[in-house]
């Protein structure tokens, strides 16, 4: 026999508990929760955004910002999965080069309607451009970096280039001396993300381009062949670290931090890493070596708002807050990025920082990754081409020709 009375009592108790639990949710009339996906740049990323969320919640009572930090390598897949399941956040950081795919599927909100002239005017000249597609702005540049040549002062002084090499010929000459002294000369990246970009440094400096204005592969050019031949000879003559296809960017940076690599091309955030991990390392930063011209690679990451967000007004409010002077300076300083807003650029930390200024000065000659479909396929094709040349299984000419066919199959499609 079931004791209905007892059952009723326990159910009503449960109901009361549930009712109490629901009560706070219903209290304020307009309580928005803004979910933000951010990429892990360093140990400082999570704490920074948590702090911003807390400050925002304090200034906007009732609203809440939830931060989710995702490893950069997993970010794209996470967004892909979240979006397929309609469970994506309201705001996310993305690689600006991915933006076109988001726009094509109509997933991100154009931000022009939210921005006034005053807001636009916060940004430095061209930094809004990479996230504009068909005259609409879909992303705000949250992080920017460019590339320069880091050199080990002791090794390069002994090799006769105390202020770093200026041209590729000088890089080779310095690497020869370093090799003769038993060291690793010029670091060549042969693994992981940006193997292609590492090749483009040389390609651009010889006046080449990666993708033509009519969105066709353009890297299979005299400049491209020259760049890949240069790297091949550096690898074959032992002027780089051995086993280049085993070294991704982090591995190269580690080698440099340990004082076991003469030269490496990478981003400004290595400055912060060295300051924290090996403050005794004597190093300098020079522009990317020139072939026939000056060139560097500039990258921005953008923050976008998703179209399916139900809290767009509050989400924008949070974005607006993130791009005010205080948060911007704190973030860019902590992560070692380059300023994207005028307020940051005017801050004494940046104007007085000689090393960062080297990067800032490179920006006028910077190449951005073009916002075209098939960029990832192009990157993969060129990466494979470079790897096959470093492994000795293809000539630069043949490898680039093959990559050109592969890239053209995907570019602009």
């Amino acid at each position, binding site marked *: 026999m079931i004791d209905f009375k007892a059952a009723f009592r326990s159910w009503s108790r449960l109901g009361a508990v549930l009712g109490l639990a629901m009560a706070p949710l219903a209290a304020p009339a307009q309580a928005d929760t803004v979910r933000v996906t951010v990429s892990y740049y360093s140990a400082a990323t999570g704490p920074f955004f948590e702090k911003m969320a807390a400050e925002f919640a304090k200034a906007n009572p009732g609203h809440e910002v939830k931060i989710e930090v995702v490893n950069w390598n997993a970010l794209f897949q996470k967004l*892909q999965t979240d*979006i397929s399941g309609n469970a994506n956040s309201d705001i996310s950081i993305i690689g600006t080069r991915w933006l076109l795919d988001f726009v*094509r599927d109509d997933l991100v909100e154009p931000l022009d309607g939210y921005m006034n002239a005053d807001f636009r005017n916060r940004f430095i000249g061209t930094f809004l451009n990479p996230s504009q597609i068909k005259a609409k702005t879909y992303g705000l540049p949250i992080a920017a970096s460019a590339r320069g040549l880091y050199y080990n002062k002791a090794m390069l002084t002994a090799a006769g280039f105390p202020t770093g090499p200026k041209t590729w010929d000088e890089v080779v000459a310095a690497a020869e001396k370093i090799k003769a002294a038993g060291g690793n000369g010029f670091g060549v990246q042969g693994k992981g993300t940006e193997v292609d970009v590492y090749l483009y440094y040389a390609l651009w400096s010889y006046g080449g381009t990666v993708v033509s204005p009519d969105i066709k592969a353009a890297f299979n050019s005299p400049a491209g062949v020259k760049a890949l031949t240069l790297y091949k000879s550096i690898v074959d003559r032992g002027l780089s670290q051995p*086993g280049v*296809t*085993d070294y991704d960017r982090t591995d190269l940076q580690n080698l440099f931090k340990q004082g076991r690599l003469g030269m490496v091309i990478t981003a400004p955030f290595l400055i912060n890493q060295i300051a924290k991990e090996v403050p005794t390392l004597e190093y300098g930063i020079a522009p990317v070596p020139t072939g026939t011209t000056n060139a560097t690679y500039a990258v921005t990451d953008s923050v976008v708002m998703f179209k399916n967000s139900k809290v767009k007004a509050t989400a924008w409010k949070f974005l607006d807050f993130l791009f005010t002077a205080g948060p911007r300076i704190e973030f860019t300083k902590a992560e070692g990025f380059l300023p994207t807003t005028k307020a940051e650029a005017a801050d004494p930390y940046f104007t007085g920082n000689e090393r960062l200024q080297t990067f800032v000065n490179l920006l006028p000659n910077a190449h951005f990754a073009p916002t075209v479909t098939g960029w990832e396929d192009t990157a993969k094709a060129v990466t*494979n081409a470079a790897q096959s040349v470093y492994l000795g299984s293809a000539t630069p000419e043949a490898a680039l020709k093959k990559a050109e066919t592969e890239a053209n199959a995907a570019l602009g499609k």
Partner: protein
Amino acid sequence: MRGRGGVAALPFPVIAMIGPSLVLAAFVVGYPLYEIVRLSLHEVSRFGMIRAFTGWGNFANVLADATFQASLWRTLIWTGFVVGGTMVISIPVAVVLNLDFAGRGLARTIVMLPWSVSLSMASIVWLWAFNADYGVVNTFLTAIGALPRGLAWMARPETAFPIEIAIGIVVSIPFTTTVLLGGLSSIPGDIYEAARIDGAGPWMQFRMLTLPLLKSFIGIAMILNMIHVFNSFPIIWIMTQGGPNDTTHILITYLYDLAFRLGRPGPAAAISLIMLVIVFSFTLLYLRMQGRERA
């Protein structure tokens, strides 16, 4: 209780007991399968938006893709070597562990230990062990003078892929040994005694008694390993991500590369269906072997 077709009709309690799990299984297996078939027949954006119907287009493109062909071939090499190597090592290990000797419990525990470590963790540890600059392998080999200077093991497919196969073998041994030990313990001891009286030496006993009686267990361990190794993702993905220049891809890593790096769920779905057919044929083989056992 016989139904009209001569097939035994299941009594209601039996249906009631297996019914829910059948429905659940049908949903858990059926829904993803339906989705994958749908993706494989369409052009799909990287965010899973279905665009144009392409029919067999994805399959045709995949089959004509040189990287797919190379990966398929490499998958067969991978599966063959890992499973073959595992069996060659596991059979003697199981036979030894079945003997009665002091410290057998400890020895069994040591052999089983790798099982308790997740594949991903094991792969990361091995990746560090083979690191060119500070890996223990290079340190050891240079210390004993076998190498003048450390090798970049993961830089070339000629060294990276065999290392991955070796790790695949190491992590497959515990499972295989367990299955074989189970088989060995089912062989009665008195037949060995009889064989000894008839003058059979240890090798003869192994060849004429152990191996034939263990055959069905070896077969099952092989098939289960084949299914598992064929689909094994972590070792290769963590150690080389299929690189350099796509020279260490097997089908499952190439599929992942296509779907999540290049953002092409359509062709990736086609590959996964092709893999499904291959694994399914392994499974049929397994079921047939099991059936033969029972008969």
